[in-house]
Each structure stands twice: as structure tokens, then as C-alpha cells.
């Protein structure tokens, strides 16, 4: 199967290797040169010698690793990097601010690496593009048909309503949202509705990058300045669900904001009251749409339900396989 990815990428135990650039793509551990699709920690490991990424991703990387001494090369939308006869281009993936799909191509063929993506519009993301390619290496986080998310606007309305209901019941709304991307989007939604927010430090420290991109959060303040008061919503990463920052809020309404919220079991997993399926990943129909739109002859699926998704694609007449055994990661961002 690995020859489906050649000559552009080779699966190795340490990650996906791009020989033309002598670099690894989103490697799970430090390496001399890494090409990063976006800044989530499970794609952007610390300690690389050199990173190639969009300007936003580089800025996030430097913010998260202030002592990092390495070099960075900006991959701008529309630019081409060329080495050894292979061109590398980046296209928006619609996942988070600065997230990119990577297209490798030579004279005879091309490969599109989606990284993490979604096709529906986000508040802080450029719309995902659909570059053509002969081979598609797609993420499959939600690669099963049970994962169908409602329209984003509808979920945003439910988020605001859940916060208002909490206030009416004398509770503090606690929004569980990943620190990079989801938290800032939730804050934008609440700002628009006039609801002030208290942000966990992990999300708060990334605001300068959002401000630089033109997103203002006048009603946000950091948690360090004190716990949420009446009328404020608390936004923290899901991993905090069972830690004191949440559990010490005696009267709370916990809102879990994630694609995984379609599972009722998430209620118990995160001690949550309200499950809102808002995701920065493509849902199952979007994954199928992307496969069709990219028009690739062959599809390789990885992450999440890769094997199931590949089998389903095969059943629909695509040539598809799963990339397994290579890089398994935890998810920072689903």
C-alpha cells in the first residue's frame, strides 16, 4: 500500500517521511525537519529542528514553545516550494486558524494530504479548498455514518441558549472546548450574544494570534484573574472536566462541544449536562464529499475509523485503503 503514497511520502515508524524535502509530515516526535499541517499538539510535536508551516501555525508553535530555538520557513497560500523535482503547495483545510492541506506533485502525479479538515465554514478559518490530486491521503476521524453533525449555525444557537438557561437557573455555564480553535470560536459566538467569557489559560494565551488575524474578543478575560462570576461563561479544555477548575463550580451546567458529543456516553465521560456536536473535523458526509470533489484515483485513509472508512469507500466503487500501524495519536482537537 505504501507505494500508493510514493514517490511523495513513505510511512516510517517515526512518521510520514517526504524524501524530496528530507522532512517528516506532522511527525509525532521531534525530528530535524517537520512540515506541519496545523498547530494542534498531536500534529505539532515539540523540539523539531526546523518547521515548515503557514505563518499562523508557526506563530502558534512559537507561542506554545517560547524557548524553541529552531528555524521556521513560512509556507504561504499560493506559494510553491520545490525540491528534487517535487512541488509542495498549501491550501486552507478549514480546521483551525492557519490549518493547511499539503499537495505534493511532480510531472506525472500528485498527492493531497488533508491533515485535519472540515468543509463547512468556521468562524476563524478560511473555507477549505478542494485541490485536485491523483492520490488523496485523508483523515478519517469521523469515518463512520453515525457521525452526522447538525448545521453549525443551529449548534451555535443551542450553545447560546444553553448558557442563557444556565444563567436563568442560577448556574455557571462551563463550556468544554479544545484550547486551540474550538475555545476561541465558542468565545466569538458568546461575544456576539453579549455573554462574557472566562478563558482557561491554555486558550487565553493564544488570543494574540487570533487578534493578529483580526478576531477580537472584547468580553473575554483570563481565568487567572478569578473564577467565573454570575453572568459569565467559563471555557476550559475537555481534559479539565474532572479537575477542580470545573468541579469547584458548585452550581454549573457543563456543555461539551465536540463531534464526539453525538455519543450519549460523552455525558458520563465528561460529567456533562449538554452535548453539542460542534466539530472542527469533517463529519461522515463531508469526508465523502471531499473524496468525490478531490477526484483522486486512489484514497488512503488514516486516523480514527480509517479501516471502516476505507472499506465503505471500496463498497462505493473507490480504490481505497487504510494507512494503519503507522502513526497513532491522541486527539487534541476532535
Amino acid at each position, binding site marked *: 500500500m505504501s507505494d500508493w503514497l510514493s514517490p511523495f511520502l513513505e510511512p516510517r515508524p517515526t512518521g510520514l517521511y517526504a524524501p524530496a524535502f528530507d522532512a517528516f509530515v506532522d511527525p509525532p516526535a521531534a525530528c530535524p525537519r517537520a512540515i506541519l499541517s496545523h498547530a494542534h499538539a498531536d500534529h505539532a510535536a515539540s523540539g523539531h529542528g526546523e518547521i515548515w508551516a503557514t505563518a499562523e501555525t508557526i506563530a502558534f508553535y512559537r507561542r506554545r514553545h517560547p524557548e524553541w530555538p529552531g528555524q521556521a520557513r513560512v509556507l504561504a497560500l499560493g506559494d510553491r516550494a520545490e525540491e528534487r523535482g517535487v512541488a509542495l503547495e498549501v491550501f486552507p483545510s478549514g480546521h483551525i486558524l492557519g490549518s493547511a492541506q499539503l499537495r505534493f506533485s511532480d510531472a506525472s502525479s500528485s498527492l493531497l494530504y488533508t491533515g485535519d479538515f472540515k468543509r463547512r465554514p468556521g468562524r476563524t478559518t478560511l473555507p477549505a479548498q478542494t485541490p485536485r490530486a491523483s492520490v488523496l491521503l485523508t483523515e478519517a476521524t469521523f469515518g463512520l*455514518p453515525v457521525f452526522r453533525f447538525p448545521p453549525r449555525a443551529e449548534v451555535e444557537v443551542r450553545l447560546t441558549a444553553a448558557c442563557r438557561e444556565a444563567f436563568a437557573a442560577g448556574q455557571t455555564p462551563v463550556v468544554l472546548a479544545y484550547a486551540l480553535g474550538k475555545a476561541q470560536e465558542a468565545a466569538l459566538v458568546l461575544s456576539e450574544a453579549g455573554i462574557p467569557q472566562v478563558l482557561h489559560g491554555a486558550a487565553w494565551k493564544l488570543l494574540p494570534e487570533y487578534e493578529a488575524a483580526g478576531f477580537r474578543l472584547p468580553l473575554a478575560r483570563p481565568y487567572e484573574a478569578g473564577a467565573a462570576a454570575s453572568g459569565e461563561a467559563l471555557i476550559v479544555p475537555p481534559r479539565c472536566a474532572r479537575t477542580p477548575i470545573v468541579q469547584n463550580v458548585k452550581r454549573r451546567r457543563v456543555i461539551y462541544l465536540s463531534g464526539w458529543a453525538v*455519543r450519549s456516553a460523552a455525558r*458520563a465521560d465528561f460529567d456533562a449536562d449538554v452535548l453539542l456536536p460542534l466539530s472542527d473535523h469533517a463529519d461522515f458526509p463531508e469526508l465523502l464529499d471531499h473524496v468525490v470533489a478531490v477526484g483522486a484515483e486512489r484514497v488512503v485513509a488514516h486516523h480514527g475509523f480509517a479501516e471502516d472508512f476505507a472499506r465503505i469507500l471500496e463498497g462505493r466503487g473507490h480504490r481505497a485503503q487504510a494507512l494503519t500501524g503507522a502513526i497513532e495519536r491522541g486527539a487534541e482537537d476532535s
Partner: protein
Amino acid sequence: MTDYRRIAEALEAVSQTRGKLAKIERLAAALSRVDDTDLVVGARLLAGSAFAEWEETVTSVGWATAARAASAVTGWDLETIGACAGAIGDLGEAIALLLEVPAGPPLSISDVDVFCRRLAGLRKAAEKQEALEGALRRCWPVEAKYFLKTLSGGLRIGADVTTVEEAVAEAFGADREAIARARRDCGDIGETAKAAKEGRLDEIQFRLFHPIGFMLASPIEEASELSGELPLFAVEDKFDGIRAHVHKQGGRVALFSRTLDEVTAQFPDVAASLAAAPGAFLLDGEIVAWSGDRPESFFRLQRRLGRKAPAPEILAEIPAVFIAFDCLFRDGEALFETSWEERRRRLEAIGGGLRVSAASSAASPEELETLFVAARARGNEGLVLKARDSLYQAGKRGRAWRKWKKATATLDVVVTAVEQGHGKRAGMLSDYTFAVREGEALVNIGKAYSGLSDEEIRTMGNHFRKITVARYGPVRAVAPEVVLEVAFDTIQKSNRHKSGYALRFPRIVRLRPDKRPSDANTLQDVRELFEQLSGR
């Protein structure tokens, strides 16, 4: 006519609500919106079954049947359905997520009643599947979710039939105790709800031959736990058999097991001897295998089980008797609300060759210890203590009855597979299959459900998700790296597990992160324990 969607949406709302009172409120609101003609079935469905408890009816739709029906209705292949169930953590919920809103008339409560009764009546898997497909084609997603939960016998919404009792009280302004009594006596939350609404709960009377719930005992670990209160308790042997209620009137006898299933045909010898006792009664007691003048172990009795009607040879080889220890109804009079002492007096007065357990008392933990040793010497499991002034709380595990038995040993075992629990543990990987070592291999010896805290189960669940190596429907095979210490009552030979042995009543004592799989016990250890325990 009330739409089933009202019931399904109410159940969904209950599952999303924290706190018992809020759940009761939502159930009560749903009850008050059900039409009178649908109230009986509607209340049953809110409690998780289309049937009255006394009907002893189950729909028994298996995982495979439901998955095949879902495949036919949604067009997804079985492998994808299975993967979806694994991803969501519940087959019914996964199927609901795959369904589209149907065209056609809404599903009514009585439609669901008809579907459930048809499914219960069908025996062949193919017929069940076809009937289920017909139902699923008419379900909205939320209806499918709760319809399938109802068929599988567990709603898992943090509310049970006693919560519905409270909701009936709230909805119709009826007395909570009167509702509990009525439900116990008629064995039907639906009938109870209707009577409560119509203000005629007191017309419901206990009827013989309708099974009722069993009063259960809470465990104690040490004799000293009860030291001060000991004189308040009567002490009886705890028998190692099958708990049963006997209903008898005229020449008719019916035996019901704890699952409220009628088991009379499995014990013709027991039923015949009880028919000789005078008058009408409902007795609580235990069916045990009997030899000469003493009970034999449960394993002997077990050889008679699983057959609808045992052959004469096996009846002769392994005779069974009923040992009565409580009398709940006698010649037209219900005794649930009388004290244990009074019920005991009535029990002893029956006569007619009825075998009655011996009751004694203990003034001190030391005396209790002596009684315990004597009970074990008689071949019984341990002791049951019953508060002398306590009423019979059908279907409840309270502190008025206590049981004391000792775990015989523990084994260190390796977890080989996990699956989701039920009830409070729904959505958590709380059921563990475990193995002992045999050379380089591991052989399964049992499965246990509890013993760890929710926090531990959650942490372990995340770990097990990471080390999952294969999925078979709801079961995840995991890399064998987690060691547990399990306690059990005894060991028996069994074909159920690869080891050739099974543990009776295994429970997890603790995680042993300090042990590696190579430190786990071996099959040889199990053989030796078996010899030791069966050689008593």
C-alpha cells in the same frame, strides 16, 4: 391515542437530566400527558418494558438480530453497523443515528405494544428480524433508540420502576406507599398508574400466582459490624440453592425464581411435596439439592437446571427440597406489612410436612461466629440475619436483612476482554473477562462486573480503549497487561470458559498495578484450589 414519540422524548429528557427529583418531575409530566386509554402501556414503557412484571415476558431480541434488522432498514452492511455500535458504545443508539425520519403515520403507544408482543411471541431469529425491520421502518430516530433499549431490557437513563412509582405519585397526587403496595400486589406499574389516576389504588389486592419481587439482604463482612444491634436480629442459615417463591392454592402450586420466571416444571418433586401442605399461601424460601438429612452444594443442583422438565433418573439421583423461611400470604390475608416475627409464627403454623429453616439468635459477635461455623459445617453458605420487627420489602435490598458469607480465596488474573456495563455503568467499560496463565498462554476463567469505583472504571476504560486489539460486536479484546485481584465464592468445572473452570460470584477486589501478567495465577493454582474447596 398517544404518540410513542412523547414517551421516547420524555425518556431522552430524563436521561439528560441530573438528579432524581428532576427525573421524577419529567416522568410525571410525561405520565400526565398520556391518554387514559394508553396509560397502562405508557407507564410500563416509561419503566422500561411493554409488559407487566407478572407476565414474565421478555422480547429477547439479540444483538445480531437487531444489527441485521438495522442493516436491512438503513442499507449499511453488518460490519459497518457493528463498527458504529462500537464507536457509539450502544447498538440501539447507533441504529438511531443511522435512521432517517420516516414518512407515514406516527407510531402510537399501542403500536409499540403490538410490536413488542409480536416480537415476544416469535421464536425464529429470521421472523424476529423481519418483525423488527417493520417496526424500525416506522420509528423516528429517538423512538428507535428507546424502542431498542426497551427490547434489550435496559433503558439506562438513571431511572427505574421505583422512580416511575414516584412519578405516578407526583402526577396523580397519590400516596407513595400506597403506590408501592399496589404495584407489589398486582405486579404491574401500568395497572398501578391507572388505578392511581382513577383514585382506586385500594382496590388492588394481592393475587396468588402473580410473581412478586424478592426481599434481598445487604452483605456484611464481619460479625462485629452488627455487634450492638445483634439482639434485634433472627439468625438463619444461608442456603446454597435457588431462591424461590411458592404460590399455592388448592392443588395448584407455582414456583417463581428471582427473575420472576416460573420454574415449577423444573422442580416437579418440590411442587408435589408442597401441594400436600394445607391451605393457600405464598412462601419465600430456597430450593436446595438434598441428600439424607443435609443440603448438598449448588453444583449438584445445577446439574438439574437448564432443562424444562428433568428426566426421572435425574430426579432420583439429585432430589431437591424447598426450605421455607418466610410466609407472605396465608388463606386470603397478605402479610407483607406484618413483622418478621408474626410472619414466622404463621409459617411455623402451616405444618403438613413443610420444611422450615431453623431460626436462632446471637447475643454477641462471638456467638454469631459460632453459628457461622456451624452453618458452614452443615454445608450451607453462611448466615442471613433478619430484623425481627421488619416488614417484607418486596424487590428491595435493604438493611433489615443482612447476609454474611466469606469469600474463600482470591486469584490474580489478567484482563483479556472488556465490554460496556449496564444501568449506572452504561457507557463505561465496566465488565471484564479475565484469564489465568497456562504455560505461555492465557485461558479465560471468568467475567466480573463490579468492585471498582466509577473513577477507576473510567480511568481503566480509557486505558482499555488504547490497548484494544480487536472488536467483536460490543466486546473489545484487549492486550493482556492489566492484572486484577478477584475474590469468589468457589470454583466449579465448566465448559463456559477455556480454562475448564468457572468462578462462582467473582468480584474484583482491587487493581494490581504492582503485578505483571507473568505474576498472575496459573491454571495449576486453580486446579489445586478446586481440589481444596471441593474436598470439604
